[in-house]
């Protein structure tokens, strides 16, 4: 009389199907999170309205009304808040890009120095790494800004360096070159880089096919540097310099790098370089000894062994942690606010936030921008990493 229970079908059966269950719970989670986000947004808006606090993004079009000490793009106090935002963003990007470049170069030099067989160089590199990476960055910025600034002369007492540069409490002043046809020269440089890359690819292809090696360094340099020079000469060789002139208070005109900018750049670069040095050292030490010995055995010179065997393998270990350091440097640039450099946080999340009082919108935008910068850096570095990774065959 016993029935086969398993044959009995019930509408409750789906509850016991792990697949359906999984989908249902994930859907529930998504709904819950969506609901949470919706509630946060609507509540915030409702509360701001009820407290009579202005909300929305209309303020971006309003006149900013304040001046900024440094801007890559043209800006005056009659421009909009959106423009002030752009000024802050470009200032952040400027210091981050230059910082990454300097930190990478210094980091590689110090990292290689750590591995040097010269006792003095190795110990000095070790000292640099241990001291710089163990002192908080904010403190280092204060040292760069306050200690160094105090030691600098006033504009009227500043002695010229190399004839045309002046370093005083107001920054580093130098001549600003003005090219007659600036964009043509930039275009020529871009074409030069493009041609050099094509040339390099051809050369590699040729070597792989025939084994014949083509000279690389001089032709590439010629293309990258020569073309702009040719363009410059062809357009009439018009080059003028805008020299800074000492006025009643400051050097006016010319090119001025603010002390805040120099201090931030130095602080960020040298701090991050100490971490990069350790990454480089560990990356190179991570290449098995046998690889170097094998390179010696097949008669490669030391330079060739380093360039063709060790570094390509070391890069594989270096790039992922290097990406982290680049991201750190970019985010650390927000410490600019402590020494008065007008970066995104200082200008937008500082002055604009305070003058408009629209904290929620301003902070959201700022967070989104840092997220975007970091993601773009990540994507670029991942692409670079994929190219450098050893392809297993």
């Amino acid at each position: 009389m016993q029935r086969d229970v398993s044959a009995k079908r019930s509408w409750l059966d789906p509850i016991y199907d792990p697949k359906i269950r999984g989908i249902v719970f994930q859907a529930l989670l998504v709904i819950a999170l969506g609901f949470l986000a919706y509630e946060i947004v609507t509540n915030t808006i409702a509360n701001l309205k009820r407290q009579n606090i202005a909300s929305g993004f209309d303020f971006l079009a309003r006149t900013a009304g304040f001046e900024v000490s440094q801007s890559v793009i043209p800006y005056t106090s009659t421009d909009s808040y959106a423009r002030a935002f752009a000024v802050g963003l470009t200032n952040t990007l400027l210091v981050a890009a230059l910082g990454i470049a300097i930190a990478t170069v210094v980091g590689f030099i110090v990292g290689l120095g750590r591995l040097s067989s010269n006792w003095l160089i190795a110990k000095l590199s070790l000292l640099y790494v241990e001291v710089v990476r163990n002192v908080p960055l904010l403190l280092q910025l204060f040292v760069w800004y306050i200690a160094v600034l105090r030691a600098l002369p006033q504009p009227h007492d500043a002695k010229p360096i190399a004839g045309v540069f002046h370093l005083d409490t107001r920054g580093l002043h130098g001549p600003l070159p003005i090219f007659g046809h600036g964009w043509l020269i930039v275009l020529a440089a871009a074409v030069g880089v493009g041609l050099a890359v094509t040339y390099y690819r051809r050369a590699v292809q040729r070597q792989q096919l025939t084994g014949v090696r083509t000279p690389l360094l001089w032709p590439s340099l010629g293309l990258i540097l020569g073309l702009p020079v040719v363009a410059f000469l062809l357009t009439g060789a018009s080059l003028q310099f805008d020299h800074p002139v000492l006025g009643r208070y400051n050097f006016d005109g010319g090119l001025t790098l603010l002390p805040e900018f120099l201090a931030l750049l130095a602080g960020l670069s040298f701090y991050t370089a100490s971490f990069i040095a350790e990454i480089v050292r560990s990356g190179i030490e991570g290449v098995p000894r046998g690889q170097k010995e094998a390179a010696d055995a097949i008669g490669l010179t030391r330079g060739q062994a380093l360039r063709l065997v060790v570094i390509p393998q070391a890069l594989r270990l270096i790039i992922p942690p290097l990406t982290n350091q680049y991201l750190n440097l970019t985010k650390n640039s927000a410490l600019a606010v402590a020494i008065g450099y007008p970066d995104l946080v200082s200008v937008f999340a500082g002055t604009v936030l305070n003058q408009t009082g629209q904290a929620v919108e301003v902070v959201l935008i700022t967070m989104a921008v840092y997220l975007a910068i970091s993601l773009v850096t990540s994507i670029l570095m991942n692409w670079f990493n994929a190219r450098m990774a050893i392809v297993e065959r």
Partner: protein
Amino acid sequence: MPFPRCDAIWIFVRAIVGWIKRSATQQSTARLGHVGSHKRARPNLRGVAQFLFAVFCATSAMAQQPASRTLEAVQKRGVLNCGVNTGLAGFSAPNDKGEWTGIDADFCRAVAAAVLNDPAKVKYLPLNAKERFTALQSGEIDLLSRNTTWTMSRDTSLGLAFVGVVYYDGSAFMARKSLGLKSVKDLANASICTQTGTTNELVLADYFATNKLAFKPVVFERLVEVLAAYNSGRCDAITTDSSQLISERLRLQNPDEHEILPELISKEPLGPVVRQGDQQWESIARWILFAMINAEELGVTQKNVDELLTSTAPNPEVRRLLGLEGEFGKGIGLPNDWAVRVLRAVGNYGESFDRNLGTGSRLAIPRGRNALWQNGGLQYAPPIR
């Protein structure tokens, strides 16, 4: 979308979960014979429901704002949270005993005295120019008494309400005497330091733009940093409210080497701020300030207030101020001796001014525009009647 009835929803959710669990147990007992069926993990329905419920209630709790009855909240807490300057002698700065002094700190004390009957029950929260409005908006402080300029945008679009003017001020400049400046216009192309998030920052840009002059701004978050930069020669001049310059000049190594230019390039009426939407609290703050000013006008001081209370003072204006006549306390939800408490704690406006900013202090700022109206100043309070 507020959900105030979380309890009802919770009961409902539990009922459903219980029902599903029961039917699930029945199912598995019925299936016992089937190999492996009991090994299937039961879905953690309860956990999921609790999570959903938590999300639900957390978000609906967010919709329920703290009550707009600031007075009740302060009295229940027993302490007044008062936002002050991080340190500005004469307005609010800790003295060598760690007590906050200054005309702004006095106002905190006056409010605490009226509301809590104890001027010591104040928690001072030192705030930057940048942080001050957010602290008030978010309810971290009940009162902002921190040399803050009353402007239309601040009064109307930040959810804040200014209650009056404690000090009539203006933007001024300080520079080294050795520069030999005659006027602010001599500062063309100079580097000028100022504090971010202040009206001074905007006034500076306006003034130079109006006069078609250029300048190089150097902006810091804190006043200390502004002063340090000026000290190290990073900038030729600093600009802020003239009262702040007078106060900060004394902190420089050689105050005599620096001068404050006589020109004031803006109107900076400084006053206490409360949140918009709590009419009662706004009235309390406003009338405490008015009571202090009226007391000066009527000659009621910290010393003679108790005397006047017992004497059969003939002046009905004084009697109203001291709560001997009328029921003015009722209108603001305070006992009738609210003004007496204030005067006992900090004295009248003139006394507080003299003690902190005027002749009785190191700053020795003349009353000037801050004198009473009958003495040619701007301080004028509506009558208590």
